[in-house]
């Protein structure tokens, strides 16, 4: 079990010594029990930090944001920024390092092991609560313990744990500057790709029907993209909302920009959006599951990304987020790669 005080002490010491300029971690939110991202710069704020099963967020996202902010401000701060990172979050940081988004010494990773558990799936819990709010939550061995107005209740942990955590193969941040908690990477909660395997047992017609129904519902809020640390492009291929227009941008550049999809949230446009995103995540998605968690209309986006991940694993022996110095999936070629298209 991670001692929360260790996280706070680590953050406080890092800030007090000036070793880092800020710590990105989790703190209690104002709505219900869910934690929220915290950005602290003063040692005395370290006591705000929390660590519990509602620390869903992949905070690597804010390393990307910070980099963009520093670039915009033309700043190059000497001290790194520290981030509390779970196993999946740390893998995301590795991918960003592999892609040279920032340098290793610009980030200080406070690794936190999920040990035998992971994060909560709020939708699963809501199914058990019938609308009653819970005020606190913790994993206790194989149990999930939460408190509501009716008192303390227990559920088997796997009934409310996020699918991604059940299937996680590495709930431990291998890449870190400091790490808290035990390495329990060998734990067996569910088989890897279990949800995908169940899904793929269906016929292609059933699967197509499934995806049509789900994509029909997409409201194109772009939360899946906005929450993804890998979706850092200044200019996103699927829409214009982050297209950087400056005083120097010519009329031709604006006019000739290809509109791959329309803004209409229709099935065909939605499918194009999600398929394009999935392709761009091939070999990069570390299965933090944030896209699926944040989707307001519950589109099972993890299945798409898992599919790409499994392809990469089975056909190329590739695991995203495993090695900073290693080759990236789509930017490397080996003689024994399957398929003939590149030869």
């Amino acid at each position: 079990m991670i001692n929360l005080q260790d996280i706070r002490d680590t953050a406080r010491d890092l800030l007090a010594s000036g070793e880092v300029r800020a710590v990105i971690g989790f703190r209690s939110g104002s709505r219900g029990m869910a934690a929220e991202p915290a950005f602290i710069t003063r040692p005395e704020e370290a006591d705000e930090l929390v660590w519990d099963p509602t620390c869903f967020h992949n905070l690597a996202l804010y390393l990307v944001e910070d980099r963009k902010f520093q670039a915009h401000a033309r700043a190059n701060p000497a001290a790194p920024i520290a981030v509390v990172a779970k196993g999946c979050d740390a893998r995301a940081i590795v991918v960003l390092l592999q892609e040279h988004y920032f340098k290793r010494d610009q980030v200080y990773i406070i690794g936190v092991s999920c040990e035998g558990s992971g994060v909560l799936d709020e939708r699963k819990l809501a199914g058990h609560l019938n609308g009653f709010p819970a005020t606190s939550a913790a994993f206790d061995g194989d149990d999930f313990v939460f408190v509501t107005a009716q008192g303390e209740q227990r559920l088997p942990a796997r009934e409310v744990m996020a699918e991604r955590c059940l299937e996680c193969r590495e709930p431990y941040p291998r890449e870190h500057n400091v790490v808290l908690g035990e390495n329990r990477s060998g734990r067996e909660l569910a088989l890897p790709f279990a949800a995908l395997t169940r899904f793929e047992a269906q016929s292609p017609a059933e699967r197509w029907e499934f995806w049509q129904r789900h994509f029909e519902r997409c409201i194109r809020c772009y939360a899946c993209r906005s929450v993804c640390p890998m979706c850092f492009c200044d200019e996103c291929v699927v829409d214009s909302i982050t297209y950087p227009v400056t005083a120097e941008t010519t009329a031709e550049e604006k006019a000739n920009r290809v509109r791959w999809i329309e803004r209409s949230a229709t099935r065909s446009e939605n499918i194009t959006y999600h398929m394009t995103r999935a392709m761009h995540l091939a070999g990069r998605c570390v299965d933090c599951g944030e896209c699926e968690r944040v989707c307001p209309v519950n589109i099972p986006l993890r299945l798409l990304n898992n599919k790409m991940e499994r392809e990469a694993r089975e056909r190329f022996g590739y695991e995203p987020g495993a090695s900073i110095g290693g080759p990236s999936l789509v930017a490397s070629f080996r003689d024994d790669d399957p398929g003939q298209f590149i030869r």
Partner: protein
Amino acid sequence: MQDNVYLPQLARVVRIADEVAGERAIKTYHVEPLDSAGFEHACGQCAMLSIFGRGEMMISIASSPLVKEYKQFTIMRTGRVSLAFHELAVGDVVGMRGPYGNSFPIEAWRGKNLVFIGGGVGLAPIWPLITTAMAQRGDFGDIGVFYSTRSSSIMYRAELEALRGQADVHLEGWRTHQAGVAAGTAEQTVTAENSVAVVCGPPAMIKSVIQNLCQLGFADEQIFTTLENKMKCGVGKCGRCNVGKDYVCVKGPVYSWAELKKLPQEY
């Protein structure tokens, strides 16, 4: 106005004039409604112009309301739709809807001195005022027209030159958008007393000109400008041009400095 506010009327481009060349070229268009119904407008109002397949853009109507047969638009080549306008030929048909927004209270300015300060393509929104005032020259006191531009190319050059004799026209050497520069030529020729100043141009230029006018003793109520926020619907619904409680497409684009000061600085 038509029942369906979003349905443009069709209009034919009857004249295209090159004003300024280059990357950000400026052209002037005369556009006549196909069904000849058209619409009346007031000085300062705008219209939504369409090129079908490219989209719509809000452009101020640059002709005087006294001109009934066509509407004049002066368009800088800067985005998707404006680029498409620059590729048009005389005779092409475009979409037009409007008029949108409020207007300059020119009726209240009769008997007063008028000072017009335009920067770049920002001369277009105040051009209907200038031409209307010149057409009714006797109704107004002194008229000064100041134009500045980043390049050396001056739009409406012939028209501006033609004003000389009836108005005090300054076309060069007046770089008011450089912060801190006093009103230069204007200092000698412009007085605040019984005057109204109208300024339109890039945001930075507007801000420094207003400062200069205030230094010259202009009261906030004597200074007018137009806000050019991004717009899509033109009828106060889509929310894009929202500044404080105002949808600029309805409550603007014309604001006195006194009114503008009450809005949040979000333009």
